[in-house]
């Protein structure tokens, strides 16, 4: 029994869990931005995918993975802008708009990959963001092997969680954002621009998802592959709900899902059929969503376009 536990819960697995969790963490922060402002963002998956592609592409042509990161951020933001125009200004159903973005992203990345590189499936290798070792931490027993050495984006993601928390709960804009997602008319009556707030929130949401995607193509790996996000955008959405729309909650949920993923890799080593094993993170997601969180109350105005007059 103890042996099994050690087999699944050890520094190697936990470090892998953190790596697996990183794209979920970044993208779920994006989810929080949009939904806290009252806009559903089902399009996270597609925004991630476009971010992953653009990150790879920029890194390929400039040789600079940091520029790739910026490219991914901007591409994600642009997708966010599209979603905002559709759902805030034109009041298209937000789920429909998000789904359209997912379908578009799936198609356009496959097409561009062929068109630009004349390859199917995976892009050429590009340079990626550096792996860093944190000096003191890496010497602490137990902690060191888990947190000590990672791609720099892993640390960025953790810092972003803290920043999002501070933004939401300590700053003026965070308070306004939350009020817009709960009761836009009340926000309007105290002079807050509901449309502008939602626009900015959804654009930032896209940018975060873009970063989440970039982690896959220019940090974790160093190439882009068709559909490489593989549902992570939706899992990030689940992490956001599981975390009750709070940054630290979503962080915890992302780590849990990351852990499930890491365990899954171990199970495969044990020779359990991979098709079965691959279901583990998803089953865990469903169980978590159905059972553990209890009643999660989403922002009240979520999904409803704001109508003046």
């Amino acid at each position: 029994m103890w042996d099994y536990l050690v087999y699944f819960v050890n520094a190697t697995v936990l470090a892998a869990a953190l790596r697996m969790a990183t794209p979920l963490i970044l993208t779920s922060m994006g989810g929080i931005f949009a939904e806290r402002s009252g806009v559903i963002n089902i399009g996270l998956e597609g925004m991630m995918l476009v971010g992953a592609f653009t990150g790879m592409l920029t890194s390929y042509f400039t040789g600079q993975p940091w520029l790739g990161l910026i490219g991914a951020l901007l591409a994600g933001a642009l997708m966010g802008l599209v979603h905002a125009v559709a759902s805030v200004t034109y009041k298209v159903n937000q789920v429909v708009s998000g789904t359209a973005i997912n379908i578009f992203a799936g198609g356009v990345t496959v097409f561009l990959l062929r068109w630009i590189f004349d390859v199917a499936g995976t892009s050429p290798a590009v340079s990626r963001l550096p792996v860093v070792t944190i000096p003191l931490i890496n010497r602490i027993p137990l902690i060191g092997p888990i947190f000590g050495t990672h791609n720099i984006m892993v640390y960025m993601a953790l810092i972003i969680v803290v920043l999002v928390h501070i933004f939401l709960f300590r700053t003026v804009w965070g308070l306004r954002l939350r009020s817009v997602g709960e009761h836009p008319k009340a926000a309007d009556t105290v002079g807050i621009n509901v449309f502008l707030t939602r626009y900015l929130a959804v654009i930032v949401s896209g940018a975060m998802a873009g970063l989440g995607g970039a982690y896959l193509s220019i940090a974790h790996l160093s190439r882009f592959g068709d559909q490489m996000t593989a549902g992570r955008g939706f899992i990030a959405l689940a992490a956001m709900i599981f975390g009750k729309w709070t940054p630290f909650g979503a962080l915890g949920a992302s780590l849990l899902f990351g852990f499930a993923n890491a365990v899954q890799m171990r199970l495969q080593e044990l020779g359990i059929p991979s098709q079965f094993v691959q279901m583990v993170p998803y089953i865990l997601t469903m169980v978590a969503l159905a059972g553990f969180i209890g009643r999660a109350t989403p922002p009240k105005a979520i999904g409803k376009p704001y109508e003046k007059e």
Partner: protein
Amino acid sequence: MQNILELKNITKRFPGVVANDKISLDIRAGEIHALVGENGSGKSTLMNILYGLYNADEGEIFLRGEKTKITEPRQAIDHGIGMVFQHFMLVEPLTVFENVILGSEPQKRGFIDFRGAEKEVARLSREYGLRVETGARVEDISVGQQQRLEILKALYRKADILILDEPTAVLTPQETEELFGVMRNLKEQGTTIIFITHKIREVLEISDRVSVLRRGKLVGTKNTSETDRPELAEMMVGREVLLRVEKEKAQPGEKVFSVSDLEVRDQRGTKRVKGVSLEIREGEILGIAGVEGNGQQEMVEAITGLLRADKGKITLEGKELQNLNAMQIKKKRIGYIPEDRHKRGLILDFNVADNMILGFHTEPPFVQRFFIRDERAIKENAGRLVEEYDVRPPNIQQQVSTFSGGNQQKIVAAREFSRKPKFLICSQPTRGLDIGAIEFIHKQVIDQRDKGAAILLVSAELDEILSLSDRIAVMYEGRIVGEMPVEEADEKKLGSLMLGGEARKDRGGDTVETGTE
């Protein structure tokens, strides 16, 4: 006195109605100006225009002598205009003080200055006698406190013109008195107040001048000291109004409805009804008097199946109801006018026709074979009720959320009365209604009684209880603390029981006179 505000020829049209029709209104600096008029006469619309939430189609606004354009609430706030809305504009999961500062937050480079903000809110709250728990979440505080919070919001933004849109509709008589105290205090400090209400008594008590709207037009403005009840009533409705209910003595028949030893907990698990027993006969109205929040709502919700009863029996014509769900109970021909029409009585995003069949929408004639809606029957039903109950505008395709508060209430009443209930529960049935509509609803209630319905009336308005009921029970802290025929009741006696009768003495601290002993 000088005019601080002049509205000139304000016109606002909505599809199918002219909500404001060339309204010109002068407001003097430092006065309390009452604005009255029937439901749907355009009071809220006019104030929303002044606050920049709606934009007028025509007309001009002069503020302190200067022509001013107000197209956004931000501009109104910057011009010192504050508004307390008919339906509060509060963000419920946020705390009281977060709501106060929202949009005008004290900050240090983007970070909210929580300490400074809380201090400032506490100071304002003390200075104006507006008691609120600054740290509590809005969803957890009482309606009266929410209202004080709304006023604080306006004062925090340094409003010197304060609009109060029907603030007393949701207040208990004590809370209304407190509000008037605050209003007088504000007036002394130079604040101009526009005060909307349906209660003429309040107009006469608090205002300096009063303006009356009818069907979107200004009927006139009077000095309060030079007018009286009948004149105002006539100006509002355009005809003489009976300010009294006329009814024959009840002819109670068989026992129809009874509750025995009922105990109910609210959603948070607190016991709110602690062993209530009641009986109502055919053709009889039992009035439940009591300060709101003494278990009336929970009792009614247990009867209608919205809350589960912990203990006790509820019977209608000998059959037990306590374990049925709301739909099954509805099918037993129980009519219900809920006190919160936004949460319970209506689906605001549906149109009038669909709201007029809610609860009966699965029954003929509204559905035919294979669950297909019979649009003709639905339309015919709505058309008839809208006419009979004088719902304005009489457009059955219009979304219910765009109707004035009073007209929304008429829609609920029309639907519930139309199915000839055997047992009818009316919870605050005339809250927010104009005097004409109150007269009308009261007549309908009496009419239902005379047709043999047993009626349970819950109201915080003693006038209403006294004029409609045949018997009166007083509820206090989850119990019935007194019951009497209407002939033996009067305001003083009821008022004393409502505050706990003798029990109150040992607690002390209440300022209301002792009862009849």
